[in-house]
């Protein structure tokens, strides 16, 4: 892990490269990274403000509170499946700490998540008539935990993809399934008890519920929920990084 810090300049450059290349040569350029979340919010406002109504009060705000962190997680995971494999030419020719690749994909997705939030919060205050609450401060520790949790998961999928190329496609399906098994577009209090058990087996549910607590229900996170988040993050990092460390000596020969 020290070597990741040692190579922070490389991580920075990898993230900047992806951000630059994503919108290079397009007319709007970097504005796209702001226009993207804006359009997403507008589409949801239209669909759930006019076509499907009902559900929790201030529905669109509720949805965005869950969807934006979900997108951060899903995008990181999807991108990181190829993060070792797609850098194969580099890995076969330069000795460098390969941890930087999954970490950089998470930070790239994080940058987009933060840009989306920059668009989202002013809109929430102006259009969704949300008022700032003290509990919003708890957003930052949850974000930090989510980042670390995501990094651990990305270590697992990036390693697995090197040995089984199927993981990329499997992850895509799994994420789709997981999306519906996470209380993002419905309120967990409205589902049946048996389904609740399933939802509580999904680690992502705890993160999304935490975001909803502090940003939507305006309550601080309860201690037991915080402990669950800490345990999940710890497990993800330890398992993910151990797997990565064990397998990384074989990466150069396998990619």
């Amino acid at each position, binding site marked *: 892990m020290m070597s990741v810090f040692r*190579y922070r300049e490389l991580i920075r450059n990898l993230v900047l490269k992806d951000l630059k290349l994503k919108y290079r040569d397009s007319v709007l350029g970097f504005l796209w990274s702001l226009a993207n979340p804006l359009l997403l919010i507008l589409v949801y406002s239209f669909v759930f403000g006019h076509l499907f109504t009902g559900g929790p009060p201030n529905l669109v705000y509720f949805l965005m509170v869950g969807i934006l962190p979900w997108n951060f997680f899903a995008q990181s995971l999807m991108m990181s499946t190829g993060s070792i494999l797609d850098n194969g030419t580099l890995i*076969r020719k*330069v*000795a460098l700490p390969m941890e930087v690749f999954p970490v950089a994909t998470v930070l790239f997705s994080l940058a987009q998540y933060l840009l989306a939030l920059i668009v989202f919060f002013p809109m929430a205050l102006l259009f969704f008539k949300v008022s700032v609450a003290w509990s919003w401060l708890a957003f930052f520790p949850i974000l930090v935990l989510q980042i670390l949790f995501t990094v651990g998961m990305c270590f697992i999928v990036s390693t697995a993809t090197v040995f089984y190329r*199927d993981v990329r496609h499997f992850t895509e399906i799994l994420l789709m399934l997981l999306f519906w098994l996470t209380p993002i577009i419905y309120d967990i209090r409205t589902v049946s008890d048996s389904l609740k058990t399933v939802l509580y087996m999904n680690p992502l549910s705890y993160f999304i519920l935490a975001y909803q607590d502090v940003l939507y229900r305006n309550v601080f996170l309860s201690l037991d929920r915080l402990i669950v988040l800490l345990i999940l993050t710890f497990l993800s990092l330890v398992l993910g990084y151990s797997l990565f460390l064990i397998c990384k000596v074989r990466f150069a020969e396998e990619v």
Partner: protein
Amino acid sequence: MSKAFTIRHNKADSLKSKVIGIFHKRYREQRETLWALKGVSFNVSPGEVFGLVGRNGSGKSTLLKIIAGIYPPTQGKVQLPNGARMGAMIELGVGFHPELTGKENIFLSASIHGLYRKEIEDIYGAVVEFSELDAFMDTPVKNYSSGMHARLGFGLAVNLNFDVLLIDEILAVGDEAFQHKCMDQIDRFQAEGKTILFVSHSTDVVKKICDQVCVLEHGLPVFVGKPDKGVEQYHALLRGNHS
């Protein structure tokens, strides 16, 4: 030091092929061990230019990759003086992204080799000067000619301040003037006491600049010693192949 690769026929890198392999013997993964290097051992003193010669597939590049730390050795180890910075030039311009400009690529590629931003800013001028590409720093690398690409790569490689340089057959690029410049640069490195390990098929160059050579044949070190003798051995191997 030795290195074995596992060659897998019908390599099962998807779940499907693994599962099919259980039922159909014909599709099962077959493993075979290939010793790419066997019992290779030598010492290189600081400031020495060490040449590796041998026919295609004799294990030269594998050896460089093990020394660079890209592949782990199967047996034995590579020892480096404490704190020495190993620089690999397995390929010039590795890590260049075609869509990025020359300048962006210098920053990206130097950070791939572990430099900090401050260090990159310090060498930037020297890289541009060496590669003679001042006018093209804002051009995407995809529009470079192969010679320009190589010049940028070499300009970067020689400015990374490595203590040990690993060079894999990269002097065969660029025009004659640029090759002279590269040779001069290698002389300068020697004068600075840097160690160079160097793979080449050009026996003239090997004789001219190496202090010691190792001749590899099928992964075995058939000769370690003076360049003149090594080149003779190498030629003998080549002749043996044709008769």
